[in-house]
């Protein structure tokens, strides 16, 4: 534990307190302003796009006369109107903003209508006629593998000698599993508003996780310098990865429209357009071949992943890398080969979504473990533990990082006991014997999730802190607020640094003119990185204040202490604001930046080896379900979760991430189905057809706890741990509970694909009854 914990200072401090979200009072009153709620400039125009009707085609012409003649239309933009680069792809330059000569998925933007009102723009967009010569389309990942159609080269990671291990193993299993994708379904759709300013500058209000990237891409698209663009985002109405790279498309179109018309332009996507036009979680086809011994220990394994990346690379490289890194989850794979195909399909380009490939990798290995247990007739819990990473041996991952902070044995011990797993499993077994129609199932699954951007250079953050003469503080950093509570957590850190209340701190919008070059708020890294950066900025000012105070009281700097909005110097004290006044009068700077780079990480992308992750976050969940074998319907009955947030900065906020992540994960694995028809059209593009969990889907018995006394062994901000993504994968326990319920003597290891919709389950039952 770190010193400040031991001294008991944290008792009174802000860090560690379950403070409400800084905007909670604004959320509940409707006063929290999202991008569409901002005051609109008087001459604002609105944008809507005309989209490709085919999945793959050569554009031969676009008729826009009727569009231009539609009521309220001011102008229409096509690819030729883009003065700079027609691309919003963050890594590869393969993502046209407006299609130019070629359309590659149904819904790809071809032209942008600019009109006086939103309704006029949307109506007019329906009037465009797009002419094309249709080309052959590849609509699923396996077809892409067959045609060697990839957005990026396939990658292979090998450790040990998997072929020999497989050939000599006493037991061997092979299977192919389909794992569906997922729409982010943030409640606030994608939106940006571009406002021209004097001298060619542009201010862009964007609902984005990555203002810096929006700035860069808008600059390139409109042929400006970065300095001439300011991107601002106070908050998003949810993002989940969906506004990491995709927000730039919306912002670029708003900027292009604004440049062409010379007026401010807002582009807000209708929900259906949002779901059709923007990327989702990658669906995977997983092939595995595993060899194991009598005790269930994995001796050798061969994975082949085919991921639907869609029509462009977007973030698919790092997403699939992370899937490769996480297909061990918590298990030691001595002899392993992972082949990862990044399939190019004529569907929307898939992108980041909470977990970023990790969930797919972990789904794969958990399926293998479950199959081994079912093959051997053992409790999957036993097989999971049998394969856990060891403490001193069997503790090096397939990418050569040593797992030296593993607490899963402890988490499992505690959770198995508190959830009464053993008794309930036995009781469920006898229930199922007596009940042929309604069957129950239970499963426990672990999470080990690597924290850091796998692209090492992204692991840097900046902050800006001002202290005003009255002792109040303006806090800014490169992180964005999407509901995860980043802003309150960072404010708690800064409050403690100055020994003042959080109410003395103004939390302000992410703004590229205040903190430059910030990484995306992603990879669960927001609090770790921005918390440290803001702490450093505050510490610099604090250092100057200490100097002033020591001089004023004629004591040593070590005698100065900041707490309770006051400054103490041995037996004397003053208000924090008084000291600030004193410093100002002494001509001391009360503003500072802070910069943080994550230490210790280094990793060679070419060999997939090194230390990509600063540390790991852990957790486990036990889920019990009931399944109707006649209808295929399922419900979660009880959930027990124990999750590791290190020494939490804010246990209420962290609990919210754990609970929300789990439920979102259950949605991914059960009700949320992305369905495309033969013409490559997404059929599930609105909440009427795409079903995220509702209130009644939450287990009637839902018990979630954070691991206590679990300080991060690494020097993170107050020894806390990242919490954004890891809990999402706790939901794998729900999927395996469903498998457990479906398994019986006739079919020990049901071939259940994901999502486990009633249809998927009925198909499994039909197949097993046919056998």
């Amino acid at each position: 534990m770190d010193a400040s914990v031991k001294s008991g200072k944290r008792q009174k401090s802000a860090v560690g307190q379950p403070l409400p979200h800084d905007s909670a009072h604004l959320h509940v009153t409707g006063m929290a302003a999202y991008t569409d709620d901002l005051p609109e400039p008087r001459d604002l125009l609105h944008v809507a796009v005309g989209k490709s009707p085919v999945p793959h085609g050569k554009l031969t012409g676009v008729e826009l006369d009727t569009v231009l003649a539609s009521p309220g239309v001011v102008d229409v933009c096509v690819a030729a109107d883009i003065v700079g680069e027609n691309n919003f792809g963050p890594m590869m330059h393969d993502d046209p903003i407006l299609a130019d000569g070629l359309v590659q998925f149904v819904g790809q933007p071809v032209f942008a209508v600019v009109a006086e009102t939103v309704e006029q723009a949307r109506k007019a967009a329906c009037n465009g006629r797009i002419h094309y010569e249709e080309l052959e389309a590849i609509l699923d990942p396996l077809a892409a593998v067959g045609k060697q159609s990839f957005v990026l080269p396939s990658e292979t990671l090998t450790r040990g000698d998997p072929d020999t291990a497989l050939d000599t193993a006493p037991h061997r299993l092979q299977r192919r599993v389909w794992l569906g994708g997922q729409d982010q379904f943030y409640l606030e759709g994608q939106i940006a508003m571009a406002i021209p300013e004097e001298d060619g500058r542009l201010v862009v209000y964007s609902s984005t996780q990555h203002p810096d990237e929006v700035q860069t891409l808008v600059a390139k698209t409109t042929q400006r310098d970065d300095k001439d663009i300011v991107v601002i985002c106070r908050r998003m109405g949810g993002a989940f990865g969906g506004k990491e790279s995709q927000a730039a498309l919306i912002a670029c179109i708003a900027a292009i429209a604004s440049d062409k018309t010379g007026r401010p332009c807002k582009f807000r996507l209708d929900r259906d357009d949002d779901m059709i036009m923007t990327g989702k979680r990658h669906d995977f086809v997983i092939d595995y071949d595993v060899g194991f011994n009598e005790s269930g220990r994995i001796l050798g394994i061969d994975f082949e992943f085919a991921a639907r990346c869609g029509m462009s690379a977007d973030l698919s490289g790092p997403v699939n890398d992370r899937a490769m890194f996480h297909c061990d989850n918590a298990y030691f794979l001595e002899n392993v080969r992972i082949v990862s195909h990044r399939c190019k399909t004529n569907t929307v380009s898939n992108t980041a979504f909470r977990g970023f490939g990790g969930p797919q990798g972990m789904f794969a290995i958990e399926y293998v473990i479950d199959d081994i247990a079912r093959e051997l007739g053992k409790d999957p819990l036993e097989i999971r533990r049998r394969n856990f990473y060891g403490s001193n041996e069997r503790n090096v991952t397939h990418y050569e990082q040593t797992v030296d902070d593993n607490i899963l044995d402890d988490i499992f011990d505690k959770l198995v006991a508190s959830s009464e797993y053993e008794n309930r499993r036995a009781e469920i077994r006898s229930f199922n014997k007596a009940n042929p129609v309604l069957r129950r199932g239970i499963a426990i699954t672990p999470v080990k999730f690597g924290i850091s951007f796998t692209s090492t250079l992204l692991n840097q953050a900046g902050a800006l802190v001002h202290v005003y003469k009255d002792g109040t503080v303006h806090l800014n950093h490169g992180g964005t607020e999407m509901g995860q509570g980043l802003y309150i957590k960072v404010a708690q850190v800064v409050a403690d640094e100055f020994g003042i209340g959080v109410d003395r701190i103004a939390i302000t919008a992410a703004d590229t003119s205040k903190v430059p070059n910030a990484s995306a708020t992603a990879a669960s890294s927001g609090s770790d990185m921005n918390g440290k950066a803001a702490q450093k900025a505050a510490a610099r000012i604090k250092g100057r204040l200490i100097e002033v105070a020591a001089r004023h009281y004629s004591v040593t700097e070590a005698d100065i202490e900041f707490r309770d909005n006051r400054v103490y110097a041995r037996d004397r004290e003053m208000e924090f604001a008084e000291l600030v006044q004193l410093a100002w009068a002494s001509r001391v700077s009360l503003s500072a930046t802070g910069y943080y780079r994550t230490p210790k990480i280094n990793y060679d992308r070419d060999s997939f080896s090194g230390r990509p992750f600063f540390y790991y976050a852990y957790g486990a969940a036990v889920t019990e379900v009931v399944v109707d074998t006649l209808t295929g319907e399922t419900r979660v009955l009880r959930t027990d979760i124990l999750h590791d947030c290190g020494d939490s900065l804010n246990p209420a906020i962290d609990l919210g991430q754990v609970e929300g992540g789990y439920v979102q994960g259950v949605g991914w694995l059960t009700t949320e189905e992305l369905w495309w028809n033969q013409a490559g059209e997404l059929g599930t593009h609105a909440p009427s057809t795409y079903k995220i969990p509702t209130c009644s889907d939450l287990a009637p018995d839902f018990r979630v706890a954070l691991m206590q006394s679990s300080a991060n062994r690494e020097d993170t901000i107050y020894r806390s741990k990242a919490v954004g993504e890891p809990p999402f994968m706790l939901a794998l326990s729900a999927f395996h509970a469903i498998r457990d319920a479906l398994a019986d003597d006739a079919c020990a290891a049901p071939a259940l694909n994901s999502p486990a919709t009633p249809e998927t389950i009925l198909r499994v039952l039909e197949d097993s009854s046919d056998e």
Partner: protein
Amino acid sequence: MSDSSIRFVLDGEVIEIDDIDPTRTVLQFLREDLGRKGTKEGCAEGDCGACTVVVAEANGDDLSLRAINSCIQFLPTIDGKELITVESLAPDANDLHPVQRALVEHHGSQCGFCTPGFVMSLFALYKSNANPSRQEIDDALAGNLCRCTGYRPIIAAAQSMYEEADPQSDWLRQAFGTAQDPKERVERLDRLVRKDGLALEHDGHHFFAPLDIAAFAELYKQHPDATILAGGTDIGLWVTKQHRELETLIYTGRVSELKALELTSSHIEVGSAVTLTDVVPVLVKQYPGLDELFRRFASPPIRNAGTLGGNIANGSPIGDSMAALMVVGASLVLRRGGKQRELPLDAFYHDYQVNDMAPGEFLERIRIPMPDPGAIVRSQKWSKRFDQDISAVCTAYRLQLDGDKVADFQMACGGLAPVVKRATNCEQAINGQAWSRETVERAAAALAQDFIPISDMRASADIRMRATQNLLRRFFHETQGSLDETVYTYGRQR
């Protein structure tokens, strides 16, 4: 008093509007015309609840408060009512309504975008139920999606909001910060009562809201191409999603005869403008086997606006009420001008969106026979999600036994054909036979002659058929007493 302007109450003031597109939604009006941005658009189709507002109507000396989806509700439909939005609940962010305070204290918001909608649904619950069970909370919130919290803290807030109640201020707060008696609100609404119907005209678009059935029938006869608007839960989407121009709308929601709900000794007589919220409890009381279906039928805001008549007249093959109404022998009273006729519901649909109504003819009321004590009636809904989902398959049965033999069996299905229809081959395989597993297996096989389902995003054709057959098997088990719970009811804390 003009009958060409809309009048409603907002925060204690009467708002009068005389020149507006009648298909302008309440949400557009709030956000774009008034700049009241607390209410959010999440989907513009009434499925996510971010746009939820509450509408109050005088109900004797009290007010009835109902949550609705403002994103698909046309502004003229709130004429004569009080509109309550999230801004109406608290004068400022430091003086919160108990519902709002409970949400803050239980960390019920993360990104906050869905929150105003949850606040309004919880507010409606707060005013109608002092001690809701988990099931009642789930039901009340079925139309509100939250993607961040996983709902646990929202449920906790719903369970504790009454502890936050302050009797002095638990009513609405006005912008000027005073609590107000519902009586004053009722009186103010009474002053908005119309003597004449509403007739709006804007840019060639007409909206009529007649007050009695004679006027309604006459208007429709004059304008046979007009669109009849009831709850607008589908027509709203024609505007927000399909961008259709609706030249003439005739609204059923003010016609007193169409809003009548009567129980006679033989029938439940449901005017075609009676909302689902009003008719469902009456129907479920008579037919308890329809409880699960109607709990899962859309969501409270949709049921508050949507009507049983609209569900039937719209005639979607996936409409949830018709299968049940067919098997209980419901009939429709259709009217054109002054001329009425009665038609059994199962003779009403001819083909996809083709029904028996002539131009100018409209649905006046639905006649639902009172239950026969000897008959078992049950309806099942099969969808990916329990709440607020559209059925992939919806089934309904009416079974009358004579000893071990089946005296009468009727089955109807939605989701399997261009229209909701009876499963006649299946019925034949069962009628007169022993009510046994063997009979049911023969009947399940016969279903394949009744329906040739299609594959779409809700289910594949073969599995749709399989599910339907299994639902029939399930119904058999239920009648044998060997299966008294569904996955939906299992393990719920009621």
